[in-house]
């Protein structure tokens, strides 16, 4: 039990570090760096707990991104920065790069390498399932990040108390 929690914490901390790395690449203000780390840590924690309970990866990403979106609203008031500045780097570790890469690799071996028709069918399945998983994760990340504005029907969080 304790071992599971520790490995969960380790993975979440590394998600936080990954998000901070991207935040520095995107040149965010210095005072937002700790916020990005905490948001990405929380999001990673939620996502990997849900994955541990065999939840679907799309639903897990949606829940984690919604946490980032909702938590970024009070934080934006506290550190006086627009929420996108720390919400986008915090969800970057959840970008489905792995699925994108699997999709394109399957497409390339479908075209260049495989000649056997039964193996081509397997590759076809891989292209579709990975490609659509990637699309749906991207959409759920976007919805999660913009959730407060979508729910409250406002174009800025500045006037929401």
């Amino acid at each position, binding site marked *: 039990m304790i071992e599971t929690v520790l490995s969960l914490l380790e993975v979440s901390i*590394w998600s936080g570090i990954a998000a901070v*790395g991207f935040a*520095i690449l*995107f040149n965010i203000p210095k005072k937002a760096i700790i916020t990005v780390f905490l948001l990405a840590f929380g999001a990673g924690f939620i996502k990997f707990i849900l994955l541990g309970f065999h939840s679907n990866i799309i639903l897990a990403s949606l829940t984690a991104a919604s946490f980032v979106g909702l938590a970024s609203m009070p934080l934006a008031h506290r550190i006086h920065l627009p929420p996108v500045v720390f919400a986008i780097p915090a969800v*970057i570790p959840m970008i489905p790069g792995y699925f994108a*890469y699997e999709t394109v*690799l399957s497409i390339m071996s479908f075209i260049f390498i495989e000649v056997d028709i039964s193996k081509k069918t397997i590759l076809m399945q891989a292209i579709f399932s990975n490609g659509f998983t990637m699309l749906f994760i*991207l959409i759920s990340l*976007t919805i999660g990040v913009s959730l407060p504005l979508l729910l409250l029907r406002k174009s800025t969080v500045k006037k929401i108390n």
Partner: protein
Amino acid sequence: MNTSKSLEEIADLLLKIASLLMLSGANTERVNLSITRFASVLDCEVFNLTSQKTIILTITDNKTKNSFTRVQNLPPHKIDFSIISAISKASWNAISRQWNFNEISKKIEDIQKQKRYPRYIVLIAVSFSGAGFCNIFGGDYLNMLVAFISTLAGLFVLQFTHKKQFNGYISVFLASLTASMIASTGMFYNLGANPEATLATSILFLVPGVALINSFTDLLDKNVLNGMVRFVHGVMTVLSIALGLFLAMLIFQIK
């Protein structure tokens, strides 16, 4: 107070703000809202067409009803969230303190002069995120070291080719090739517990996350054209990443 000349100056200022926001990776709705806010402070109304490479903007003086139109082309994009947050803060200050033209243009010039993080800090920070991704995908600490080194080399190549003004997709391809060659070396010598994780994560720093997220934000706001443009740009980048990776896997005969 607004003569025709100052209307031209206002149009230039608003175009500068809009292009700064667009280049720094703001979504289209934010660009439109920001310049509408600045225009309302200067007692003008603004109508604009914002795209990835061009901005067309017409401003109308609320008192005299004179109008002025200007088109501007945009240089290549470079994501910078400090500029986005500084302009957002400036727009709220401009409204609450009723800034005049000179105060706004001075503030925008200050924002343009903001410095980025030094290059070596960016290199090290992004390499740590490469190692972090490797941990997330189940690599052990030896795999993470290889991922760190391949990300470092890949990002170095990316920055170098950007400086030499290569085509963006070519430089992503070269960076992806470099990173995956180093990761494949780790796989060739079977370093660590899970060398596949290193190969899969060594190229993740190139994935165009902001472009892909912004594309769907734009689509949600019904800015369909910009959303599609950003999505296609993201897909093209993923294709060039995959091409580099594919070449490295062919060279090392990895299945």
